[in-house]
């Protein structure tokens, strides 16, 4: 019997040790996650999130494909896909099948960080980080509002069941005022030579003054975008950007390039990995017509047996029955294989912004021609092609080249623009603007999101209408696609909110409705 009691005692012991719930919290915490407590070290609870903010403006992951490559990049006619996704009825042929991704990504990766900072009083304790985060947020959210029109902004973080949208105008005005405070905070820190960002900065190694300059440059981009619908505010903001003590970026060394840190450039994955991205015929027509030395950098020659070694692209919005038809057309240049960063904003773009500002009569510190040539020069230099500068800017004969589709003559075209490269002071303002925007289109490559927005605003460069249009009438072929529809998730999770957003948009939630700054008509 003694043996039995010993046994019972042992059993009782086992029951005893199990009879408490002390370990429950640690058991129910994912051992491979990172807790907030872990992150207080090294201020990772603030700085740790900056990679996420920086790398989701131009998303460095595969999501970029539907977010931009099959949307903005295709609509800007930089790149199109040889893949007949969804039986060739997809964004590229104006049947929207991918449209929620940009919204969902930025509201999941960008906005929550800002809210988290605000809720944890980062704005009060670390105003420099908060200001920096806001600059990055505006870079991202401008792309969101440019895509959709009215968006959730001032009401973000509301606990109401319906979250209301703001008009695009209100969003832009918020951008300006947020930039005001960010620039003012960052300027103070820049003057102190503060290096707090260093560990987390994927672009400027913690140099705050660079972030002030890029914030000013962003303000200039925003100002130019609203120049047709709100010229007074546009001029005010643009001049404010230039006159700020650090000014805007002027050299390629100032370019905002976000380090990939070991990740492959997404365009290389789409192009080489998945064979889903190829050069658009429009690029061949414009850059090929201009004998642009950047073309062989941006793209690789075709390997198709009909056109080997040529730079031949695929026209946007054509009939494709099989991926194999166009897959051997020009793919992306090998610089993307070795790319160490993604490009967000360049000095060349800023020069073209200043050129347009000057054309509009604003005080940009120089003439339209000066900044036009400077933009071309900066862009060529960016790719190590400064030797070509003189011949290129003085080329007054080259124009867009005709395009021949070797597989299907229905897609061949003769360009409708006769715009040349060399600046002509006697040209009309429209012609001058066409020249500026066409060159800007070449320079901002591969950021199709920005190029598409500028095409929508100005109508330049003159792109080719789609050949097949599966929008079911919601997008006019001649008027091109004007925006992307709101994501389905908004209709399920915030139905009244999105209904209000559509009302503010002032047209149906389709790709055919223009956003606020897309006024149409003449540019002057």
């Amino acid at each position, binding site marked *: 019997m003694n043996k039995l009691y010993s046994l019972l005692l042992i059993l009782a012991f086992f029951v005893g040790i199990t009879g408490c719930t002390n370990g*429950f919290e640690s058991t129910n915490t994912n051992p491979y996650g990172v807790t907030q407590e872990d992150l207080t070290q090294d201020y990772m609870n603030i700085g740790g999130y900056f990679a996420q903010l920086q790398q989701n403006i131009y998303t460095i992951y595969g999501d970029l494909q539907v977010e931009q490559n099959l949307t903005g990049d295709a609509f800007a006619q930089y790149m199109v896909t040889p893949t007949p996704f969804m039986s060739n009825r997809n964004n590229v042929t104006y049947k929207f099948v991918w449209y929620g991704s940009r919204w969902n990504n930025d509201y999941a990766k960008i906005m929550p960080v800002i809210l988290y900072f605000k809720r944890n009083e980062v704005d009060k304790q670390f105003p420099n980080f908060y200001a920096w985060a806001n600059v990055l947020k505006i870079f991202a959210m401008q792309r969101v509002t440019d895509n959709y029109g009215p968006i959730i902004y001032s009401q973000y973080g509301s606990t109401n069941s319906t979250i209301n949208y703001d008009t695009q105008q209100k969003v832009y005005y918020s951008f300006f005022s947020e930039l005001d405070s960010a620039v003012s905070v960052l300027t103070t820190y820049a003057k102190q030579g503060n290096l707090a960002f260093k560990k987390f900065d994927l672009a400027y190694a913690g140099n705050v003054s660079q972030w002030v300059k890029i914030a000013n440059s962003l303000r200039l981009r925003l100002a130019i975008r609203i120049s047709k619908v709100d010229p007074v505010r546009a001029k005010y903001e643009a001049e404010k950007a230039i006159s700020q003590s650090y000014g805007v970026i002027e050299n390629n060394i100032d370019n905002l390039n976000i380090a990939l840190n070991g990740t492959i450039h997404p365009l290389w994955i789409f192009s080489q990995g998945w064979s889903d991205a190829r050069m658009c015929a429009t690029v061949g027509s414009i850059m090929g017509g201009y004998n642009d030395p950047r073309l062989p950098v941006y793209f690789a020659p075709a390997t198709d047996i009909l056109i080997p070694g040529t730079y031949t692209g695929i026209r946007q919005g054509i009939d494709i029955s099989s991926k194999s038809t166009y897959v051997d057309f020009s793919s992306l240049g090998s610089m993307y294989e070795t790319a160490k960063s993604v490009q967000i904003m360049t000095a060349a773009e800023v020069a073209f912004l200043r050129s347009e500002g000057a054309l509009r009569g604003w005080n940009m510190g120089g003439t339209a021609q000066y900044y036009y040539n400077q933009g071309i020069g900066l862009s060529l230099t960016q790719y190590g092609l400064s030797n070509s500068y003189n011949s290129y800017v003085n080329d007054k004969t080259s124009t867009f080249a005709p395009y021949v589709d070797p597989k299907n003559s229905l897609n061949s075209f003769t360009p409708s623009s006769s715009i040349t490269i060399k600046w002509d002071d006697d040209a009309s303002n429209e012609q001058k603007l066409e020249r500026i925007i066409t060159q800007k289109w070449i320079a901002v490559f591969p950021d199709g999101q920005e190029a598409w927005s500028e095409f929508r605003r100005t109508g330049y460069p003159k792109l080719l209408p789609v050949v097949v249009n599966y929008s079911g009438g919601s997008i006019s072929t001649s008027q091109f696609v004007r925006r992307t529809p709101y994501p389905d998730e908004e209709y399920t999770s915030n139905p009244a*909110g999105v209904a209000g957003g559509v009302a503010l948009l002032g047209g149906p939630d389709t790709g055919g409705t223009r956003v606020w700054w897309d006024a149409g008509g003449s540019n002057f």
Partner: protein
Amino acid sequence: MRKLLFLLIIWLSTSSFTQQQKVTLSLKNVTVKVALEALQAQSDVSFWFSTKDVDVQKIITINAKSELIDDVLKRILKGQDVYFEQKEDHIIISKRSSATQKPVAHTANCLNQNISGIVTDENNEPLPNVSIHNIKTSVGTVTNSNGKFLIVLPDSVKTLVFSFIGMIPIELQAYNGMRVKLQPNNKQMNEIVITALGITRDKKSLTYSSQSITEEEISKSSDLNIATSLSGNIAGIDVKQSATGNGGSTKIQLRGDKNITSTNQPLFVIDGVPMANYQTSDAYGFYSGRDSGDGLSNINPDDIESMTVLKGANAAALYGSQGSNGVILISTKKGSKGATKITYRSSYGTTNVSELPALQYTYGQTSAGSETSWGTKGNYNDNVKGFFKTGHTLQNSITMSGGSDKTTAYFSYGNVSSTSVMPTNKYSKNNISFRQSTKFLDDKLTVSSNIMLTMESIHNTILSGYYWNPLLGLYNFPRGLDFDYYKNNYQVMDQNRNIMAQNWPILTNSEGQMNPYWILNNDENDTKTKRMIANVLLNYKINKGFLLSARGTYDYTNQLYTLDAKATSSSVLVSDNGRYIYSNLNSWQSYGDLMLTYDKNIGRLFNIHMIAGASYQKRVIGDGLSIDSNVYGLSVVNNFTIQNIASLSAFVNAQQMASRLIKESIFGNASVGYKNRIYLDLSGRSDWASSLAFTNNSHYYYPSAGLSLIMSQILDLPSAINFAKVRTSFARVSNEIPSFRTNPTNSVSVNGVLLNTVVPFTKLQPEMEDNLEMGLEMKFLDNRLDFDASYYQIDSKNQYLQLSAPSGSGYTNFYVNAGHIRTRGLELTANATIIKSRTFEYKTSLNFCTTHNKILLLSDQFTGYYQIPGGGEGYDMLVKNGGSMGDIYVSAYQRDAAGNIVLDDSHIPVKAKEEKKIGNAHPDWMLGWNTNLTYKNFNLSFVIDGKFGGKFVSMTEAYLDANGVTKATADARDAGGVNVSGVLDNGTPWAGMVNAQSYYTGTSGRGGIMEQYIYDATNVRLRQAVLGWTLNLHKWIRTMTDINLSLVASNLFFFYKKAPGDPNTTISTGNGTQSVENFELPLTRSFTFNIKVNL
């Protein structure tokens, strides 16, 4: 062979032996029944008899004062042609004539005072503990562990009665050297069922529905996965096998879907211990889903003695949350006393494809380089024929058991090796099982232990969906090209790279189409699973009805999965230098419980059975490393190692743990029986679950109550009714939520930290399920006909849902407890022995069930719908207010107000923006019909099962149609196009022929109008036919007892089927992709030859 008409009550544990108990009784002019009841009320014994045998209405008078029960009983039954015998705490009264059957053993003339002999069962296995006595005298004995006995009889005694639980008692002439063979009684005699926590109970006392299948039925099917044998044999069970073949998971549903996000799979329990379901990867969605298997196939079917299905939560209340979807109890074989028993089983089976998609070979490739076949008419080779192989399955197993009075042991080894119809697919499994049981401390303490080891290996498991699927290239191969050339030259030397490169006409397809033979030979995957289940059980008989038991189990699984995809595989899937997927995951569970059982007869009327216990369970699933080189690439071509992965980005989230849970519980159960006719069952359980940490609800309690009335004891029913019972029960079960939800963490990414955007839901509550069940069981006509009917209503509330947070809220996802789903259903089982003679027996049974559910409320804050993850491409499972679980929504035709199909400018139907509900994935009702014919040593049985109603969606057809490779597209072309009628956008009606290519490319394919591909899922099949022959070899070879040969045919044919393929297979065990297929393996049929030898 006439059946005895006993109604046996088997009480679990013994109370004191009562033979010598004395009673006092004084009754005048009462019926025998009343007298017996009075006698029973005074003693600890119960009387078991049939009203057919005993005239209970006979009026008697009795006066007894402190007399032996035996004597009193004799006087009560005076003048009736019956005899009685005492068995433990009950006395069986039976008709004398029924016991004087023709002896099985040889008779002899010699009569001695010393009678010795041996008692065996029908298989000549010695039977220990058989009670032997003479009715007239008090002499008696029992057989020893070898079935032998010795009894000294006075000369006057000429006969002996042999009786044993579950066997027909027999009275024989006594002679020395008797060989007595007892025949088993019908199952009804011995309906002990195993209930929750491995407790055996008398079926009569159960207040809920349960159904069992025996070893015989399990081994009959000779299926590798034990779950398959449940189908058609159990009412209310829906078993769908994974489309991935051997080693795949099984989707099992009892009483339909009740949970939106959490699993609807029942709990498996081996010998009383909950088995962890270690599914770490589900073939989720339509791309490259991998099914990791769910651990069920790890179990060796030869180790199983029986499986009992407890269908509702009522039955499973003692298991708590895990039992809310019902429980399947597996009892494994144990060693038995006596001579060593060896069973050897071997089987060989073949599997062949029995149905292929309807494809065309009359229209060629559209144009050179094209991946479609919309080209010129001709006569092209059938490239599909000859691709599939005959699958071979070889199974061998040996089991050994034996032991002494103190110790018994069981050992088994099983081996399976098989190939499937898919070339290169191989499966092998080795099982070792050892079990022992030893008695200590004067037989009061029993220590049993069991260890089961499994090694399972699968080569080239079939991945579901588009990616890495050989069927994609096979079916879509452009007609007119030379398939044999690509078969024989699936790889060619690439001089530029000095590697063997894939050779296939379509290398850039967005679904990753490849040369099937390249995939099979150069994109190989391997799954290796090792599992160990070890458990120890201690039972200690404390006196006076108390039994203390303690149990501990450790269950450990390691699964290694690798996929080595060589360079030049489809660029959609594999980067320049190849792709390496590596997943090495461990799952384990430790479980312990301590339980005190108490059995007692209180007074003369009540019998109670009580359990109190506590359990502890810790379970970790999917802990380990999962790395995929994916687009990040490999440094050295075709070197499949982790260090060869080119980019650090591949390591984001490489270390994972799917879930980790600790659950502590206390539970209690009390069952009270009144005069063997009324039973009340109460249970309560309280759980503490770690997944509710950080909330205020870490503890939850749930009760159950049940009542059963044996109407045949309470009322005087017509004699045709042998037994009638009504039962009802209510149970509330709660279900803890998944791990890690209440405290979501940030995750590390390459350059920093990714902010968690899931709302930490600290108000989470356990899910709750209220079950109400009612049932009726009846037996008629000498028990030759019986039925069992159950009706149930289940209310699931507080459903745990992960919802998409409004993007403006600051979060991406949040959790709610919401919803109210009501499930109602009916289950019916009927068994009949239609013919029963000495040489021929015809038995049949029918299982019927119907279940329906309704989502009464999804959430009060949430008005939209909830999309169960997994769908896409025009197929979704949505949960909406007023809908049902399992509702399928597909992309549909756009229709005008009058319902006409809207056509676009090219007269192609337009796809509507909204998906349309087309029906439910679940059948309206199911039927299983078993027939068993025995003639002498031959046995023939059939299982027919039918599922009626429900819908099935074929994504494969949509895809193949768009490529012009289906017969439908050829027929359309032959007919000059597709006949279309509808209205144009402006409302003008239009009807006419549309070019087949424009029609199918415009409406089919991925994301096409899936409304075209909806089928009625109704199917009725001959699931299984078995022909068996048993030969008793004992006469010739002393070492062999018998040999059993059988031929099994599975899925022989369908009586009715409309859907392509097998509507009973499933892509995944999840809730989101049910009743849909996407390039699944074709339907197969198999034949198996079994040989089983008992030594």
